[in-house]
């Protein structure tokens, strides 16, 4: 049976007086790729950021309802946000490597989590780079600056950096939207491989990307979750007219 990794119930989010997410209830399964689609401003990125409390950093955000990960409400008072973000990693639209060496970018997280042993760090760095499908491209220049890598390589390095702290969930906010088709295809291939070990939630504006890589697709519109179903169903025969109109480009 598929384990439910993320579960939200009647979740509302306000930016000040503006309602940005309206009554979102969704169950996201473990070790699957779930894509969030919808027009700009529909709330999909806001919802994604709620899943590791990135919205805590924004003034005036108020969240109601439940967001459970492995059955635990991540907005409970006793939740340690740093531990939560270790468990729920995030990759952003624009690759944002530190101005450090390739090695240091990946070793940074484990090191601040207390790993000091050089041999152990080496192992973590290699595994993370391998899992992010960039190891063979950088293994001979781990000491070089990460800033010298191409955009696609930088993004995979950021994925490796996220994986290095051993998360269970990886949130991705348009991870390939700034990349050329070849780099995009490498990232997509990587995402599909990653679901063997991780639960992936991805926001994308690229409908074909959602169709290619995700198992499930959620369509958001005006802060509401309109439809959530298997990707195959959404892209061949969606239940809701709004979903159909959006994915066929009739509105949005």
């Amino acid at each position, binding site marked *: 049976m598929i384990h439910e990794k993320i579960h939200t119930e009647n979740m509302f989010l306000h930016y000040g007086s503006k309602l940005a997410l309206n009554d979102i209830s969704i169950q996201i399964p473990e070790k699957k790729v779930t894509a969030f689609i919808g027009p700009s401003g529909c709330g999909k990125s806001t919802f994604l950021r709620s899943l590791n409390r990135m919205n805590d950093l924004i003034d005036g955000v108020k969240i109601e309802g439940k967001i459970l990960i492995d059955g635990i409400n991540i907005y409970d008072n006793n939740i340690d946000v740093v531990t939560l973000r270790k468990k729920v990693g995030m990759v952003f639209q624009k690759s944002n490597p530190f101005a450090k060496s390739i090695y240091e970018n990946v070793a940074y997280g484990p090191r601040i989590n207390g790993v000091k042993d050089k041999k152990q760090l080496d192992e973590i760095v290699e595994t993370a780079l391998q899992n992010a499908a960039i190891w063979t491209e950088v293994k001979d220049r781990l000491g070089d600056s990460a800033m010298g890598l191409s955009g696609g390589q930088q993004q995979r390095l950021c994925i490796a950096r996220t994986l290095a702290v051993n998360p269970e969930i990886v949130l991705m906010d348009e991870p390939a939207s700034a990349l050329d088709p070849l780099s995009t295809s490498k990232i997509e291939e990587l995402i599909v491989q990653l679901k063997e070990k991780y639960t992936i939630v991805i926001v994308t504006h690229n409908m074909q990307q959602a169709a290619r890589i995700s198992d499930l697709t959620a369509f958001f519109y005006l802060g509401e979750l309109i439809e959530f179903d298997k990707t195959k169903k959404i*892209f*061949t*025969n969606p239940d809701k007219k709004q*979903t*159909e*109109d959006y994915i*066929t*480009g*009739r*509105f949005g």
Partner: protein
Amino acid sequence: METYRIFDSELEKLSQKVIQMCSQVNQQINNSLTALKDYDLNLAKKVIDKDKEINTLDVKIDRLCQKIFALQQPVARDLRYILSALKINNDLERVGDHAVNIAKRISPLEDYRQLVSELGVDQVSTEISVLFSYVLDVVKTHDLEYCQKIYHHSAIVKEGCLDIADRILNEMMEKSEVVVVASNILIIVNLFERIASYSNNIAESITFVVDGEIVKHRKNIE
């Protein structure tokens, strides 16, 4: 809020071509059946000659579908429509071929017009005309009510074909001199049955466009 898509004009073009294909095939069937009924060899020749136009249109529709798939990456109803347009086009082309095949088999029947009539070929021909008029209606309107009419008339045609086949076999057993011509009629009747089957396929394809339901082979699947 609905917006106009560049893609809509391509879909409209495809839709018009499929309707055009269906109208032409409908005309081919009617002409072929009239030629059979009236033993009109000139009309039969017209049917045979016109097949080239149908084949040209068939290729045009295939190419247009190919272009839309490559350039527009259709999804949902658009995807279902284009997939179905390809299949409907293929079915229509086959029906067009069968109209030609019927037309080609009319000339040997000259001395046996009474036998053709006695076997009930004219009644089944009329049913096919009615059946295919509904096929044209469903292709034009996507109104699923026509599908039920298609299934109904298709069943009548198939039953009529079985009945004629039984009678032909009896004729052949009784009168050995009619074996050659009877075999010819048997082939025509078989073509009638194929046209009825293709009509069902087209109704199933339109159901898939409208409902997203795959209804073909339903009896076998369930």
